[in-house]
């Protein structure tokens, strides 16, 4: 029976860190980005497609990447799939911002 990377119910896992922390500014921005893109005004893609993109992570990436990092990478993939932005446009913009910030 094929098990998808996210479908871990019943498996023995490692210790879960149950410490609470306030959402960071980075996490809040990613949350806001998703709400705006999937909201009634924009409807760039569905939450179902976000789940599908996250489920496409390799097992290594799925465990290595953080929760909001998986959201962010899925948002990027779906914006490209929907031809709203191209990978080149996104990469160029990232470079511009890096230059401006002196990286």
């Amino acid at each position, binding site marked *: 029976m*094929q098990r*998808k990377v996210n*479908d871990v*119910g019943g498996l023995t896992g490692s210790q879960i860190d149950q410490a609470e922390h306030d959402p960071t500014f980075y996490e809040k921005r990613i949350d806001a980005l998703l709400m705006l893109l999937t909201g009634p005004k924009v409807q760039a*893609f*569905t939450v*179902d*497609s976000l*789940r*599908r993109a996250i489920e496409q992570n390799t097992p290594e990436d799925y465990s290595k990447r953080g929760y909001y990092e998986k959201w962010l990478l899925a948002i990027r993939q779906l914006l490209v799939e929907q031809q709203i932005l191209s990978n080149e446009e996104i990469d160029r913009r990232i470079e511009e911002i890096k230059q401006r910030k002196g990286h």
Partner: protein
Amino acid sequence: MLEHQEFIASPSFNVGDRVTVKSGHPESHCRTPVYLRGKRGTIVEVVGRYHNPSLLALHKPGLPKLWLYRVRFQQSDVWEDYDGSSRDTVIADIYEHWLSSDEEHLNVSP
């Protein structure tokens, strides 16, 4: 909306029916967890008819809509060597194409 309801196919299962969750290949975005596949449970609610999430996940309209059921399983049927109370249950929402009225394990054909 109401005038279209007569064209909506009726659900294949009713509250109280015994069903088996099919085995098989998960879809693009799959909402039927592995730990319930092949397990036998009882329909406790016919939730309604919803857009197909595995098609929505591929930027498609998600039609035809699928019946969604709330299914109750005995924990002792779900987990081998379950040592909790025999009255413990787990309830999951499962779409119709993942369910069968047969007792043997079947492969899903969405």
